[in-house]
């Protein structure tokens, strides 16, 4: 430096750096705000379109919240011409091996499971992480899909009909718990709707 660093110069440089940075970030934030919001909504609507029969409403805007055991789950009803053709419930279980497991469970209007997708998990790669593929394969899938809305699925270790992943019983139990919670929430929703309209 050809001249001594004065305090004012330091403050000026640091201040203008912060200002320019703030302006740049504000600009980029405005630029990316819409795509960010669309990105998360898109994933959900894609899953719904794959697993549910055709519907004419927007399940995301018609979504309803439901409380169970201190967690709030979300129900996405799918309507066609005003009548319910199915619904998806975003369920969660806190008892996964590595933390929370979020599952999207799809139902037919009479409460049977139509399909499922694992949204988020922190399970062990190679073991619990393959739960979506494991439970989508036969015979596990038929034990879950099409089951009545009882919400009483259990892994075979607990005397139930669903085979757990070998070596990942905790993950399997948590997955089944998430599906059961979704069932009970959807049944409650169905009963409330029936009472409301009758």
């Amino acid at each position, binding site marked *: 430096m050809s001249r001594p660093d004065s305090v004012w110069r330091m403050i000026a440089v640091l201040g203008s750096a912060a200002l320019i940075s703030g302006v740049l*970030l504000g600009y980029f*934030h405005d630029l990316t705000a819409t795509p960010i919001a669309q990105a998360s909504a898109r994933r959900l609507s894609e899953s719904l379109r794959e697993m549910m029969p055709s519907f004419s409403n927007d399940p995301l805007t018609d979504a309803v919240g439901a409380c169970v055991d201190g967690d709030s789950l979300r129900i996405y009803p799918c309507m066609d011409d005003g009548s319910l053709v199915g619904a998806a419930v975003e369920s969660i279980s806190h*008892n996964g091996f*590595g933390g929370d497991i979020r599952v999207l469970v799809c139902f037919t209007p009479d409460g049977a499971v139509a399909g499922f997708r694992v949204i988020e998990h922190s399970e062990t790669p190679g073991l619990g992480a393959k739960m979506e593929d494991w439970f989508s394969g036969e015979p596990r899938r038929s034990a879950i899909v099409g089951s009545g809305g009882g919400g009483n699925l259990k892994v075979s270790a607990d005397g139930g009909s669903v085979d757990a992943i070998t070596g990942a019983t*905790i993950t399997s139990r948590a997955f089944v718990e998430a599906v059961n919670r979704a069932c009970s929430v959807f049944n409650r929703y169905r009963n409330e709707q029936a009472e409301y309209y009758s």
Partner: protein
Amino acid sequence: MLTYISIVVTAIFVNNIVFAQFLGICPFIGVSRNMSSAVGMGLAVTFVMALSTSVTWILQTCILHPFGLDYMQTIAFILVIAALVQMLEIVLRKIHPVLYASLGVYLPLITTNCAVLGVALITVQHSMPFLQSLVHAVATALGFMMALVLFAGIRRQLDLVDVPGPMRGVPIALICAGLLAMAFMGFAGMKF
């Protein structure tokens, strides 16, 4: 009360910041050569982590979130941490020159410690209440210090052993760290 015990045990053992979350590795390898610097670094990080998590929590809750400035988290938090470390340096030089001299060059390095910024970000991501986040930060830092002290003990032993040429120094230390990480995996899945 049980929640706090659960947070402390989880942060120190189950989700140890070094062995399970891979944060704070640079000082972990660089500072763990002898026991005294390991303990000194651990205590300094504990202090900085507790203070920075509190300040960033307040910053997030009172300024960033209400004004929709969540995207400024990274830059705001790192500036807070840098400022805190600078203040700590100045205070320590005045109050405890001996400690300041022994910590030496490690003090400014706390600014670039991924663990400090990482814990601040994790805390706001999980939206923990203030007291829980403070307990979580202190417990995480204690877990970091424990990892550092354990490793310092192992490295002192390694210095006395005949290690093959290419493995000397960092490689054998990393392999020992891997074995330690394996031991800590035994805590995985523990719940209260």
